[in-house]
């Protein structure tokens, strides 16, 4: 029985899919992730926060664009567990 788990922005900020501009993204659609695995970064007022997976599963959707300015609670990832 699979379940859809949503990952949302904990606050507004700039969304980064990569640890650095010249490095590959943390995750792609179809990747299997572990609980607490880092999925992305969120930069708010020059402070970086790690966006971590709330559950083990598979990334089925990446709703946010790299470097987009997100609002609090915007949808970022959908994970199927």
């Amino acid at each position, binding site marked *: 029985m699979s379940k859809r788990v949503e990952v949302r922005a904990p*606050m507004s900020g*700039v969304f980064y899919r990569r640890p650095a501009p010249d490095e590959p993204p943390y995750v792609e659609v179809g990747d299997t992730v572990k609980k607490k695995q880092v999925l992305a970064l969120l930069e708010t007022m020059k402070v970086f926060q790690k966006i971590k997976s709330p559950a083990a599963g598979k990334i089925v959707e990446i709703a946010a664009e790299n470097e987009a300015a997100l609002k609090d609670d915007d949808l970022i990832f959908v994970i199927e567990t």
Partner: protein
Amino acid sequence: MFSKILIANRGEIALRVIRAARELGISTVAVYSEADEESLHVRTADEQVCIGPPMSARSYLNMESIIDAARKTGAEAVHPGYGYLAESGKFARACREAGLLFIGPSPETLELAGDKIRAKAVIGEAGVPVVPSSPDGVASVEEAAGYAAEIGYPVMIKASAGGGGRGIRMCADEEALREDFPVARAEVKAAFGDDCLYVEKCLVDPRHIEFQILADRHGNVIHLGERECSIQRRYQKLIEEAPSTALTHEKRAAMGAASIAAARAVDYLNAGTVEFLLDRDGNFYFMEINARIQVEHPVTEMVTGVDLVKEQMRIADGDRLEYTFDDLNLRGWAIECRINTEDPDRHFLPSPGTVAQYRPPGGFGVRLDTHLYQGYDLPVFYDSLVAKLIGYDLTRAGAIRVLRRALQEFTIQPVKTTIPLYRKILDDPAFQQGEIHTGTIKRFVPDEEDDDEDD
């Protein structure tokens, strides 16, 4: 004097520079990113130019775009504020090449001051005390123990390759050093592939004392007294004051002279700050030179009566400094709190949002430098410093009373700010006695170790 200035910054410091320029009859050009259309500096300046998208790398750090804006508006001078391009030798050079007057030191001085190790060496050679250390690299534990005995315990073992705290060991005595040296070497080798270690004197709970300096084009260098900035968290200053309770008249004179020597050693021009650590025995050591106007400059202005930003413009224009520290009638005490939109109860997590409720303090002895206004939407792209609240009175106890009262009046809602933290610190008996050092903040904020608890 030049007639038009471009301010290559945003926020409270852009406003500060606009105000100073206006009082000198200089016309002002604000630059702004697409996220800052509603910012106060944009509304306050005489002209405004959009220089790019929200992210700083594409706007406030975009040299080409800024120089272009200066050309288009006919600005003759550029004030960089602090942060962003303020200490960029490359930007200062680009301004020079574009025929713009950069309000700050020369590109060469900026580059030297920016290279902390080189600056320390050059300034140490000029006779200014620096934190004693072995001259780069000790090959064996015997050699390390030799240097440690020379400079005195406690010492720190540090990695030349450095970074992230790896390889750093505090050794209280020789026994600890003999035990830790091989461990530090192994750790450093694993982390950086280079096992070069050096030994540096470890100062226990030092104070951070810095001196404001001004230097003109005619060889005059003066200092304007000290600022005490010991209340800091992770090397970010939170509360600053002038003068410091720790300095006697003689110590102030000695550190002032050292500051001037440091400035001369790097051929300094314009306003700058020489930072020192002061240990419990009254020994002071040069740390670094900040080649810009600093966030905490208002406390010096309040006690000296000198408008430092206007002095910057005057000096840049070729005017002479015709006074020294001894000519200033220093009076009273000033204390500044840096108000950030951060939650002090949640590890200083940023707190963006709309300032729905804004009620600034006022009254006798209160100075407020801020770009906030009711309804302002705090952009997520920039620093969380939103206001500097300065309390002034003839005595330190009086300045604390003014500041406590002003913090009580200050309403910024619903975003979280550091105001509640400052109320606690100002109520603290040790703070009120002036018994502070760079570790004092630990008593007021949750343990730093907990920051990344779920990693």
